[in-house]
């Protein structure tokens, strides 16, 4: 599967014409000047350095968070560890993993500039994002929008929040649909802490975030930080799948990761890991398990 650089470019000559065209097309689509690009550039880099670098939000408990000793933990970290092992088998080397802390607003830039090999975070797949980064299919998880309010606020449908201020994160994919389709006034801050503080201060009637994120926040709330708050049970107006993302033009890495996510769904790894961390897995996960079990 994998070749080193020299052998890789030699192999390129022997590729069938159609593969070559696909590779060229991929390079064009990415819009990057990469004269030596071949199918496994990033995967080569991973092997050379025996390290896979991952852009992620390290302040996203319990998906990814740093414990008191600074060690990364969480549902996504468990999956990353598994991925590291499987990827190691692909390149035939033991790999280390390095997390590059990113925010929603800068992770795509980081991936583009090669500061990391992939984005592995709660990254919702959208058509706009698909134009910029290569999502790995099958997607690994999904989430819908969730509203957290003070206790006693009763919201029955998304129409109940029309015209009201809702706090959110700058860069959340729920902002635009809520604003455009439900007439919500989005009050967006740069970090989740600011969003939380603003809800506490009553600067908005609710905060919007991924339902899985809110669920877990309440499940892991040992100190009673959120005891005066609750999650509104509203039907998700859409469920956004989360995908791993790599740069365009590395078919080898994409294939390797695709095999890994397929295996996760088939074996129920994602559902188990989600439950371990207190999530109620989305409908998406069960659909995927059914789909890949049969094959």
């Amino acid at each position, binding site marked *: 599967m994998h070749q080193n650089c020299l052998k890789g470019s030699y192999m390129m000559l022997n590729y069938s014409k159609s593969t070559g065209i696909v590779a060229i097309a991929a390079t064009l689509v990415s*819009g990057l000047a990469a004269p030596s690009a071949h199918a496994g550039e990033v995967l080569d880099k991973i092997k050379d350095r025996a390290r896979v670098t991952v852009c992620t939000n390290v302040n996203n408990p319990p998906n990814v968070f740093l414990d008191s000793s600074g060690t990364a933990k969480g549902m996504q970290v468990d999956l990353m560890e598994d991925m590291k092992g499987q990827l190691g088998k692909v390149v035939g080397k033991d790999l280390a993993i390095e997390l590059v802390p990113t925010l*929603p*607003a800068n992770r*795509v*830039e980081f991936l583009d500039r090669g500061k990391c090999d992939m984005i592995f975070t709660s990254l919702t797949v959208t058509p*706009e*994002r698909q*134009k*910029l980064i290569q999502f790995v299919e099958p997607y690994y998880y999904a989430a819908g929008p969730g509203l957290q309010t003070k206790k006693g606020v009763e919201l029955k449908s998304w129409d109940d929040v029309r015209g*009201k*201020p809702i706090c959110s994160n*700058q*860069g*959340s*994919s729920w*902002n*635009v649909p809520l604003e*455009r389709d439900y007439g919500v006034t989005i*009050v*967006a*801050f*740069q970090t989740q802490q*600011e969003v939380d*503080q*603003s809800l*506490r*201060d*009553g*600067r*908005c*009637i609710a905060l919007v975030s991924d339902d899985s994120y809110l669920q877990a926040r309440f499940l892991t709330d040992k100190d009673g930080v959120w005891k005066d708050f609750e999650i509104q049970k509203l039907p998700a107006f859409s469920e956004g799948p989360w995908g791993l993302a790599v740069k365009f033009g590395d078919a080898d890495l994409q294939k390797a990761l695709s095999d890994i996510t397929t295996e996760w769904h088939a074996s129920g790894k994602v559902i188990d890991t989600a439950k371990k961390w207190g999530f109620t897995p989305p409908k998406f996960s069960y659909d995927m398990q059914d789909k890949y079990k049969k094959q």
Partner: protein
Amino acid sequence: MELIAQFFEELYHRTGWNFSVLYNAWEAKKYVNGIYIALELALWGLLGAMIIGALCCFLRLVRFAPLRWLVTAYIEFFRNTPGLAQLYFLFFGLGSYFQLSTYGQNGEPPFLSPFKFVVIGLSLQYGAFVAEILRAGIEAVPKTTKEAAEALGYGRWAALYHIVMPLAFRISLPALGNNMAQIVKSTAMAYAIAVPEALYVAHEIWTEHFNVIEMMNVVLLTYLGMMWIFTLIVRLIERWLHVPGMGR
């Protein structure tokens, strides 16, 4: 308009350069509103800064020393700390502690909106600069002029009002113009506390489309355009207040 929109949509499909704000009606509306809010912030901030600055300048001339110390302390504090930090302090510090922007039980609007926080922040920060600029202007009025006023029988405050201030203001104008430019540019920090001005909207658009480079250009050109207008206004004021022979 239609043609411009078509051109930029075509440009995106052909080249990948996505100036979505120029062909997506919803985004265009939000962005124009963002520019409007930025201008509004600048105007209110300017007004606030001038009032606070003039007031501080005046209070510094008062003979009661503790008042002068207080004003000096304010000026030094706001001149020597970052504007963004001041804004965070006002919004998340004082604002949270005193619940200044909390909605009421039945959804009554809060005492201070994020917009007002920015106006207050800009006024306080740049008011300190205005006070310093006016002081420098007053000190630049030649001593001989003041003595001439005294010789003509003007009292301390009358001389200040009729002779010194008019000259000092004219001397200060270029520096005040600069300060004004700073205020216009500083409105951009409002995006940190969710005021939907131009940069905030641009940020929202580029997280949706990831057209950071395009939107960054649009944003910079927008501010350049705003600055151009403000510079023209300052130049007009300078010409209007020009005293023949002064400053030569």
